[in-house]
């Protein structure tokens, strides 16, 4: 383990201690302040009349009776609220993809869609009035499930289909080719139910406008700063001072990232009325009309070689994003993060999000968690099929420390941690062999024990990669009292950041933990930051706390050094006392130094700012990886289908641990959610789109009796960031579901392959055990022990067809030039030997000579070779020989294709000549056709997500060769490619926002061009352009 850098110098180390939480006193005695505790004089209350049908036209709305009820102050429809227009923004602070308002207009699109808002003197009257609203509908058939969305009517009239977003490559032949190379191809389908986030504190807001200049909003949320920014954008209030407060928050789990329809309606109503307005979501609304999470389907295929090493993988993902998702997100993160712990040379995917007549999708702890469930469930299935121990199968593929730095195929750098070590530590504590003996013994008695294992790596501490994911801010001061105050942009929804940040600060400054107070939960303190989202607060808030503490400490040292005529380096702070090395008698309390710093500026060094204050906004690397490996043991009662969790071990690497109790609390909370997802919870809709779980009697959260005591193994490796911290907020919820599912599937493996369809209820388990597949979703389980059709690996060349071509036309030495999509050309000499359909040979390049073997079919040569420089990839050559020349491509892993051309050395037709250098083609030459291409073009690229990009392209053609330059605001980049008629193709590598290869394929018609740019594995962008004047 590296020695952590930059950690505390105080006499008492606080990082790593289980200190008493600063929050617990008020929370455990009922003195917390949640939104519903907020009362403002003159405050009004709201209730909503909501649609009882999932889809239909609104024919009429009669609010007269409601309006005339005594105590009712206002009754609003969508039309009324338009006086304050709202543009709903996504988490990325961009306008949402489909038009929407706080209330339904014209149509209703899900059961619970708010149609009319009542503002009244109290909530009782508001609900009475809501009961008097009369709305007539023309009901239509709803789109409820993903299957409905595929074939049903369009949910939003503004979209062409129900596809909210699609990314990835459809029918990717390259991936299919790679998958076909495996000795075993294992397929697994996962069906994940819809989840209600169910924070203990439901959504709520108190909106308190104070004239036209100031708006105070109390709202339960994840970051008051982010909400203030969101409201300013969504409500178009650039001139209004918006202050957002959230003292205590009773859980969020992603739901409260930013406000949504009802909160916004209440805020708009308060602005229209110029009076404070409160809305508190009740549990019925929270379970039926609030945004929800998950509801995904995913089919994963993984090709393994005969030893169990992964060769390639493909995932086909769909999610039901409901009607108004908080971002029409196809969850590309699932695919980005699927293969970070394991080596997968060639991953591919297609991912789609669908609109439906159900509440919208919002984030939920580990929004990409499907990747771990799909991958880890598939591993166990593969292990059974291939008859390999699931431990060995994982070990063969886990990334080991010796391989670092490693870059995943999706471009994620793995350089400061080791998923294999995390897994090994788990198995040092859990004796798998012993368990297998117990399992075998138990089965003889008709008892079904199962072991589930999972490993994963997730990116935490996201920063700097997306505009809203800024650094976090720490503002520190030593008060004149000698106490330390921190104003943080972090925010706790149960995270305990008031405790952990105080630990970091006290540790760093050398003051008692009790002397540090952390203020957060108020947008008027600290500065903009996204706060809690994506397991980032320990990394960013912790880092900011350290950096700001260092600055503050330097100032204290400077002041003390000046006061005592000492060297600043000789000044230390221990337990709140400022000491001078070698001069014990000079020791003074921090209070004394602070009093001077604030109140006696003449005693400070010349020109020094008075006071003791410092701030720092910390921006770590774009992501900090966290890894974990879990093991779970269950017993399944095959008579009743009940699952009992007997043991659960968590080995986790969250870097430097600030407070083990907080870390364990985060892991345990996530695992409780995992248990709920695997065994109990389900938001279910009937075929008319009616929710069938409207209370906690039917929406079954795990209770304390359903959650076992977890055993924790801290397998920590400090991260390469300030403090060495890694995020740990989401891990349990990500790795928990596959761990528990795998344990159940292992227990029931004598009965076949348990379909991965959550929740695994007793009823489903019994159906499975008894072979009733009619009620089980997914594919019917195969008969126990029968592997899925696996095909044997075809050794390169085995499938070669003997050719009748003349071997002599191939054999010999060739001068070969390879032009990669980026970077310089490579010159090589190739030697080919053919025998029947078999090709052998060698390639001699300046870096060295490498042998290869492949196939020859007619005049076509194919072979593969691995290179390790500049990165480990496989090159696939595919060349065609015509007389004394050869031409073709070399596919460079997932990074695109290089053009290869060559000539026979000493051939009859031509002497070897170097490939022509790309040179700007004279405009005059353009008359024959290329002229229509050469020159400058204004080009717009529209990626599947994110904003359009505007660029200027410059093309030069020379015969079939294209060279040019793309000039974008971020910078200019050269490229070279091919031109064939009016079709231009080239490839170029970019490193921002991530390292991918763009493959352009454009066609020019007169003065316009159009086509696509394939964005690595992330799908295609539309490209259009016009000739620049």
């Amino acid at each position, binding site marked *: 383990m590296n020695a952590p850098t930059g950690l505390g110098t105080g006499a008492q180390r606080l990082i790593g201690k289980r200190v008493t939480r600063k929050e617990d006193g008020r929370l455990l005695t009922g003195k917390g302040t949640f939104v519903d505790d907020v009362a403002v004089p003159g405050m009004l209350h709201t209730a909503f009349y909501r649609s009882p049908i999932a889809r239909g036209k609104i024919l009429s709305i009669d609010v007269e009776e409601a309006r005339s009820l005594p105590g009712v102050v206002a009754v609003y429809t969508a039309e009324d609220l338009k006086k304050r227009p709202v543009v709903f923004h996504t988490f990325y602070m961009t306008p949402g993809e489909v038009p929407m308002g706080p209330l339904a207009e014209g149509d209703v699109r899900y059961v619970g869609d708010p149609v009319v808002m009542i503002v009244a003197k109290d*909530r*009782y009257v508001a*609900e*009475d009035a809501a*009961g008097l609203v009369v709305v007539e509908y023309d009901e239509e058939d709803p789109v409820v499930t993903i299957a409905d969305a595929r074939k049903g009517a369009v949910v939003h009239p503004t979209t062409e289909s129900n596809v909210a977003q699609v990314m990835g490559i459809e029918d990717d032949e390259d991936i299919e080719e790679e998958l076909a190379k495996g000795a075993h191809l294992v397929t697994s389908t996962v069906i994940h139910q819809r989840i209600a986030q169910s924070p203990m504190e439901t959504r709520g807001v108190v909106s308190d406008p104070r004239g036209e200049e100031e708006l105070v909003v109390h709202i339960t949320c994840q970051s008051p700063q982010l909400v203030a920014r969101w409201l300013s954008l969504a409500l178009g209030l650039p001139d209004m001072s918006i202050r957002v407060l959230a003292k205590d928050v009773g859980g969020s789990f992603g739901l409260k990232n930013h406000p949504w329809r009802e909160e916004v309606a209440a805020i708009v109503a308060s602005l229209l009325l110029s009076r404070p307005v409160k809305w508190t979501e*009740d*549990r*019925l609304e929270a379970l039926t009309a609030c945004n929800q999470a998950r509801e995904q389907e995913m089919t994963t295929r993984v090709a393994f070689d005969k030893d169990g090493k992964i060769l390639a993988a493909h995932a086909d993902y769909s999610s039901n994003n409901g009607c108004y998702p908080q971002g029409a997100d196809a969850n590309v993160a699932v695919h980005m993060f699927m293969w970070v712990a394991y080596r997968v040379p060639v991953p591919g995917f297609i991912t789609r999000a669908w609109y439906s007549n159900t509440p919208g999708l919002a984030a939920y702890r580990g929004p990409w968690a499907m990747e771990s469930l799909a991958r880890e469930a598939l591993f166990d299935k593969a292990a059974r099929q291939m008859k390999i121990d699931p431990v060995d199968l994982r070990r063969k593929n886990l990334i080991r420390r010796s391989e670092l730095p490693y870059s995943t195929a999706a471009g994620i750098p793995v350089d400061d941690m080791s998923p294999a070590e995390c897994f090994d530590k788990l198995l040092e504590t859990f004796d798998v062999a012993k368990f297998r003996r117990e399992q075998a013994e138990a089965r003889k008695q008709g008892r079904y024990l199962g072991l589930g294992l999972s490993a994963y790596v997730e990116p935490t501490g996201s920063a700097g990669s997306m505009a809203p994911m800024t650094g976090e801010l720490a503002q520190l001061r030593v008060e004149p009292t000698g106490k330390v105050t921190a104003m943080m942009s972090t925010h706790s929804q149960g995270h305990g950041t008031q405790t952990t940040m105080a630990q970091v600060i006290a540790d760093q400054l050398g003051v008692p933990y009790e002397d540090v107070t952390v203020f957060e939960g108020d947008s008027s303190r600290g500065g903009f930051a996204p706060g809690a989202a994506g397991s980032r607060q320990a990394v960013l808030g912790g880092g900011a706390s350290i950096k700001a503490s260092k600055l503050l400490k330097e100032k204290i040292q400077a002041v003390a050094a000046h006061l005592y005529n000492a060297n600043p380096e000789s000044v230390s702070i221990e337990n709140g006392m400022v000491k001078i090395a070698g001069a014990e008698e000079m020791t003074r309390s921090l209070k004394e130094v602070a009093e001077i710093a604030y109140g006696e500026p003449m005693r400070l060094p010349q020109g020094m700012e008075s006071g003791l204050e410092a701030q720092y906004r910390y921006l770590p690397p774009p992501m900090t990886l966290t890894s974990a490996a879990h093991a779970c043991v269950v017993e399944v009662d095959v*008579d*009743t*289908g*009940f699952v009992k969790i007997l043991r659960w071990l968590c080995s986790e690497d969250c870097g430097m641990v600030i407070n083990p109790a907080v870390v364990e609390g985060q892991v345990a909370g996530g695992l409780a959610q995992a248990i709920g997802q695997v*065994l*109990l919870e*389900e938001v*279910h809709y009937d075929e008319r789109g009616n929710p*069938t*779980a409207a*209370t906690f*009697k*039917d929406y*079954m959260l*795990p*209770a304390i*009796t*359903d959650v076992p005591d977890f055993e924790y193994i801290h397998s920590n490796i400090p991260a390469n960031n300030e403090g060495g911290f890694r995020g740990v907020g989401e891990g349990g919820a990500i790795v928990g579901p596959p761990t528990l599912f795998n344990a159940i599937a292992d227990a029931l493996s004598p009965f076949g392959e348990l379909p991965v369809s959550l929740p695994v*209820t*007793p*009823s489903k388990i*019994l*159906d499975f055990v*008894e072979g*009733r597949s009619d*009620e089980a979703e997914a594919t019917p389980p195969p008969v126990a022990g029968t592997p899925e059709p696996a095909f044997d690996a075809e050794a390169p060349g085995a499938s070669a067809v003997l050719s009748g071509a003349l071997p002599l036309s191939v054999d010999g030495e060739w001068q070969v030039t390879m032009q990669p999509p980026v970077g310089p050309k490579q010159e090589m000499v190739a030697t080919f030997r053919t025998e029947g359909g078999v090709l052998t040979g060698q390639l001699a390049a300046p870096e060295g000579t490498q042998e290869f073997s492949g196939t020859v079919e007619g005049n076509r040569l194919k072979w593969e070779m691995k290179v390790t420089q500049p990165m480990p990839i496989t090159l696939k050559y595919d060349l065609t020989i015509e007389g004394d020349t050869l031409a073709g491509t070399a596919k460079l892993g997932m990074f695109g294709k290089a053009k290869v051309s060559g000539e026979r050395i000493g051939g009859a037709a031509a002497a070897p000549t170097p490939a022509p250098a790309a040179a700007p083609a004279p405009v005059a030459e353009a008359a024959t056709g290329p002229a229509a291409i050469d020159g400058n073009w204004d080009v717009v690229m529209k990626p599947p997500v994110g904003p359009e990009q505007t660029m200027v392209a410059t093309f030069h053609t020379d015969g079939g060769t294209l060279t040019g330059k793309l000039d974008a605001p971020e910078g200019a980049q050269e490229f070279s490619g091919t031109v064939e008629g009016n079709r231009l193709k080239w490839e170029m590598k970019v490193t921002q926002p991530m390292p991918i290869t763009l493959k352009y394929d454009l066609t020019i018609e007169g003065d316009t061009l159009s086509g696509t740019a394939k964005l690595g594995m992330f799908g295609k962008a539309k490209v259009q352009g016009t000739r620049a004047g």
Partner: protein
Amino acid sequence: MKPAPFDYVAPGTVAEALDVLAEAGGGATLLAGGQTLMPLLALRMSQPFILVDVNRIEGFRGISHTAESTRVAAGTRQAVALADAEMKGAQPVFNLALSHVGHYQTRNRGTIGGSVSLGEPAAEMPATAVALGAEIEIHSRDRGTRRVKADEFYLGPYMTVLEPDELVTAIHYPRWGADAVTVFREVAQRPGDFALVGLVGRVAIEGGKIARAGLAWFGMGPTPIKARQAEQALIGTALSDIDPRGIAELAIADTDPFTDHHATAHYRRTVGRRIFARTLGEALNIQQAAA
């Protein structure tokens, strides 16, 4: 989730309460422990004109025993009944079933009479009353007192023979004798949930034969269901001749389970058959071993 407007009365005696009910003409709802009613009011699924709070009625609580039966006053809190030492000996299966009602906290408020008279088909207390052959003591102002056998009390989900002007004042549980074995098994996804499948009852044995059997299902139909065929088959049969699986088949034949998103009817029947056979077998074996 705020109740619709209602009038509130809190009578001090049974007579006062019956007066209110008689005058209300069906517009009154009784509030006892409120563990079911309060959520229903908040959800506006129940919108009474008058809420009659029976918590302050004198003598509405308490447990008394005679040689033949145990009288539990309707307003007795579940937690009080559960903690009653004498009750454990006199009515062991009542005690066992009651420990599965709701949660520790809800039992502090919930009442025996409330649970029995609500008629939730998947709840423990109605089925226990049916299994043990309890009688429900009912009062009305205009027609006086009547007693209804528990297995004739329930008509459907939340539907009973109670008239709008009637008040359940007590439940009388026959005493089965200390030797009668107890039968209880509940399959619920979480402790405190309504049962997916539940079984409760007692079986008395004399001279190696079944002398008496009272068995009822919960969660297996629109009401608690008395396993009549199984009871009849058991009575008079020698212990050595009992085939628990065969009896379970008869018991299942009387049920009418439903499918919901927690479990299928098939699941309920399958698991019901198994737990019946297992629980009965275990109960009788224990008795044989003790004898």
